[in-house]
């Protein structure tokens, strides 16, 4: 099964120079665990900011989320895979890099995101259908 079939197409993003508070608001409102961080300029690349980053790097250190910008805590560059990649390969890749989500790209554009939970659900559904993918 290709990763494109299970990816979430709705990606929420945040500007790199936005305060972390904006990211928190977006995550709470939309029940998300990560946001794509937009490149600052043409030379810059996409990044990702997660709940983990916010808790450990800002709140846990008593920094003010209203005065800390997203780019300070974001991870860059994001790990991206092609939309045609097979699920098994994505699982190995995530295991290798110890990451909880990968972004999916088509050309230069990021078109989706897949989390460990999505992979678990897709794998279980495939098993139930009788095909075993992991």
């Amino acid at each position, binding site marked *: 099964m290709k990763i494109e079939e299970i990816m979430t197409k709705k990606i929420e993003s945040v500007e790199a120079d936005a305060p972390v508070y904006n990211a928190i608001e977006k995550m709470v409102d939309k029940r998300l665990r990560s946001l794509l961080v937009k490149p600052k300029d043409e030379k810059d690349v996409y990044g990702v900011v997660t709940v983990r980053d916010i808790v450990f790097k800002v709140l846990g250190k008593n920094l003010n989320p209203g005065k800390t910008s997203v780019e300070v805590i974001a991870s860059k560059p994001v790990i991206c895979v092609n939309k045609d990649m097979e699920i098994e390969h994505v699982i190995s890749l995530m295991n290798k890099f110890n990451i909880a989500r990968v972004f999916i790209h088509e050309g230069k554009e990021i078109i989706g995101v897949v989390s460990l939970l999505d992979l678990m*659900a897709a794998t*279980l*559904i495939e*098993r*139930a*259908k*009788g095909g075993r993918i992991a």
Partner: protein
Amino acid sequence: MLEKVFSGGKTEQKVIENIKRHIKVLCTASDCFKRALEDRDKDRVLCIPDLEREGDTIRREIISNIYEGAFLPFLRPNICRFVEIVDEAFDVLEDAANEFEFINLEVDKDLEEDCTKIADINMKMCDMLLIAFEALFRKEDLKEKNLAIRIYEKKVDEIKLDLIKKLRRREIKDFWQGKTLSDFISYLTRISDIIEDASDYLYIMNVSLR
């Protein structure tokens, strides 16, 4: 035990085949509905009332066969209830199809995408229900099939929450426009709940027959 209970006489086999046919017709109806939404083709949903009637005929035949003596008495109410739940899914799908004729999803691309996604998941759930039903006769454990259906249902629930949020932000200028859209989404999102109920019932039968 399952072998003894299910591979019985001709009437039992007839019931089993008819239940499979019943679920397959539901799969066809769900597929038809999904395609209608994808292509924004309201004419496509016209097949759903026909399929619902076909489902009704199959259901009546199944119930008659059961009351003619198919299966052991302790199993009959469970099988009848399962068939009734599948039939309820037909009814709700038909209600959604009726409302679909009067709504204009094109005005909101987001709503259209979400509704199509739900219709697609509903169809996959019907397919999975058929897989689960067939697995019951292979004496397989239905736990994973039941879990797969629950995963699908959770996905529908998530989309439904988003849809409701979006709906609340919409300005409704006409009572009937608002009511039709609200009813359409209620019916569309209820189908997955019913299929989940059917799957739970199947799982209970599976466990009770061990």
